[in-house]
């Protein structure tokens, strides 16, 4: 019995020791799986100044997502780091200091305007500034349509306090995100919460206008991303300009969806040619170097028509040179299509534009005649005929024209001309009613959201 008791005792001690060790082992296993998102450490000792390295190392821990994104980019390969774009002179209106540089002579800004990008990419920025993507894009948000986002969408008309920050919600969440707006600075020289970041025509305190990171998202600044149609589609979609949808419907888009994964998206600028792809994306036709055409960051350069405003006219002045635009776009097409094919396409577009203009001019004539007789309401958003005219132009008319321009027949027809003729008939009926009775109908005759 005694021997047996001794054995039992030894066995228990061994078991206890084993359990202790396995517990410790389990604990040390926990260390094997650190929290990658928070303890990322990146030590670089090559090619950067001491200050630049400090930014990288600190931000690898503080904002690992940003540094991870950057470190595989061509910017990182070219030796461009945080410091090169975010450091500003002390006298800059945007100069502030993060905790890491407090007390030093280094001043930074979270905002980077195209002026900074232009230091290395001057011609790209100069072309961009001439395009409708720069100042023209944010103009309605800053000037023309303030009443729309503040008084109407912001609810002032329904009793919202005009000074309330809620009135800026439509701008913050909508207009500004695509069009851009104007950065306002707080006393700490940082942007106010409601004025940054912004879309493609954003206006910065250093005078720079535009936002390169809309298409080349920070902090990878990829050329491949900007070549994919979705880069454009994040703004060019929806009921008023379904360009993304039109592209997907077109033969170009179908090939992209089928074969796009195999395309060479990384070719150098101006060296991306047919063969690297089997169909063009938005960038190919509107921006890329193709054949003997050089790259351009002026997206309006290869356009003939203004397909945005109430009446389509050949582009001129600050909106470009339409005659030259058509010549350039024809050159683009001829890289892959026969001339007879190209002529047929442009013939279809020009006829569609002319037909739209016919409808619009007749509508505008009816409206001005009613106005002269005092038969239009002052508030156009409470007046059926004016709302219908808006949709004829802003939604259906654009879909018809842009569907024709980029070969999306469903948009040109069912979402375009098919609805346009019906809207026109309604406009005509209201027009006749008002003229005959000499008065405006008591209630609006159309749905407030209009026909989709």
């Amino acid at each position, binding site marked *: 019995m005694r021997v047996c008791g001794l054995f039992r005792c030894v066995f228990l001690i061994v078991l206890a020791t084993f359990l202790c060790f396995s517990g410790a082992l389990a604990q040390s296993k926990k260390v094997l799986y650190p929290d990658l998102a928070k303890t990322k450490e990146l030590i670089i000792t090559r090619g950067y100044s001491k200050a630049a390295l400090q930014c990288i190392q600190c931000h690898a821990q503080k904002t690992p997502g940003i540094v991870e994104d950057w470190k595989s980019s061509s910017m990182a390969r070219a030796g461009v780091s945080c410091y090169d774009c975010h450091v500003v002179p002390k*006298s800059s209106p945007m100069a502030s200091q993060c905790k890491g540089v407090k007390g030093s002579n280094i001043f930074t800004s979270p905002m980077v305007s195209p002026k900074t990008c232009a230091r290395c990419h001057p011609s790209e920025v100069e072309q961009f500034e001439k395009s409708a993507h720069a100042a023209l894009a944010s103009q309605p948000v800053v000037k023309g349509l303030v009443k729309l986002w503040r008084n109407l969408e912001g609810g002032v008309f329904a009793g919202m306090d005009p000074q309330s920050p809620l009135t800026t919600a439509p701008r913050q969440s909508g207009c500004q995100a695509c069009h851009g707006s104007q950065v306002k600075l707080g006393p700490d020289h940082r942007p106010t919460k409601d004025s940054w970041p912004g879309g493609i025509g954003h206006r910065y305190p250093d005078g720079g206008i535009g936002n390169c990171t809309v298409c080349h998202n920070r902090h990878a600044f990829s050329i491949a991303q900007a070549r994919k149609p979705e880069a454009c589609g994040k703004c060019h979609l929806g009921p008023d300009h379904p360009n993304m949808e039109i592209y997907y419907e077109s033969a170009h888009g179908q090939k992209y969806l089928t074969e796009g994964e195999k395309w060479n998206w990384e070719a150098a600028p101006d060296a991306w040619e047919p063969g690297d792809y089997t169909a063009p994306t938005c960038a190919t036709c509107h921006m890329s170097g193709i054949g003997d055409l050089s790259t351009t960051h002026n997206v309006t350069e290869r356009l003939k028509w203004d397909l945005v405003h109430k009446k389509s006219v050949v582009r001129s002045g600050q909106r470009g040179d339409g005659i030259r635009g058509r010549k350039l776009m024809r050159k683009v097409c001829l890289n892959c299509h026969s001339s007879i094919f190209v002529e047929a396409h442009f013939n279809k577009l020009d006829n569609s534009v002319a037909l739209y203009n016919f409808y619009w001019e007749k509508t505008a004539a009816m409206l001005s005649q009613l106005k002269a007789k005092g038969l239009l309401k002052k508030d156009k958003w409470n007046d059926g005929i004016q709302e219908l005219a808006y949709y004829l132009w802003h939604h259906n008319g654009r879909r018809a024209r842009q569907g024709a321009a980029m070969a999306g027949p469903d948009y040109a027809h069912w979402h375009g001309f098919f609805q346009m003729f019906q809207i026109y008939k309604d406009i005509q009926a209201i027009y006749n009613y008002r003229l005959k009775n000499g008065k405006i109908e008591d209630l609006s005759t159309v749905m407030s959201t209009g026909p989709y």
Partner: protein
Amino acid sequence: MNKANLILGLVIGIIFTTIISLVTASKVISTGRANFCSSCHEMEIFRDTWRAGGHGPADKGVIKAQCAQCHLPHDNLVVYLISKFKFGLHDYLAHLRGKGKPQQWLVKWEQDQEQAPKAYESGCRECHQQLIAPGIPLKAFTAHRQYELGLTQKTCISCHQSVGHGDIITAMKETLKKQAIFK
């Protein structure tokens, strides 16, 4: 007039002209230097900021450039001399009228951000002839190649704004602050 007199006259004339030319040349050079320019009080801040910067005598391993090397056109000698005369006169008159105080510069720059060149491209290019030199960083290569190919309207100082006088705006604001304290 005899022959001996003629020769004597020529010799004296040549010596005299040589001396005048040498003195003029040396004055043209010395009046383009920081020491001379900053003998007017209002230019001292430009001298100090230049001293501390990349083109000054601070130990950054860069050859120093004197005022006139950047602030006068170097297209050719005639243009250079005419400009020197014109700007010299302009600055002298401005000095007499008490102009060129930091607060006046700040207001001027505030109102006109894209004002006339503060440094001449021909001045920069006199020394910086090879813009795509061996060993140039890739980020500079991208911009300099576009410049060389004439693809951009940007000038040297569009990008290299602080090469001459560092952050001159901050320096001026700090000077004004100090003056306010001593008042």
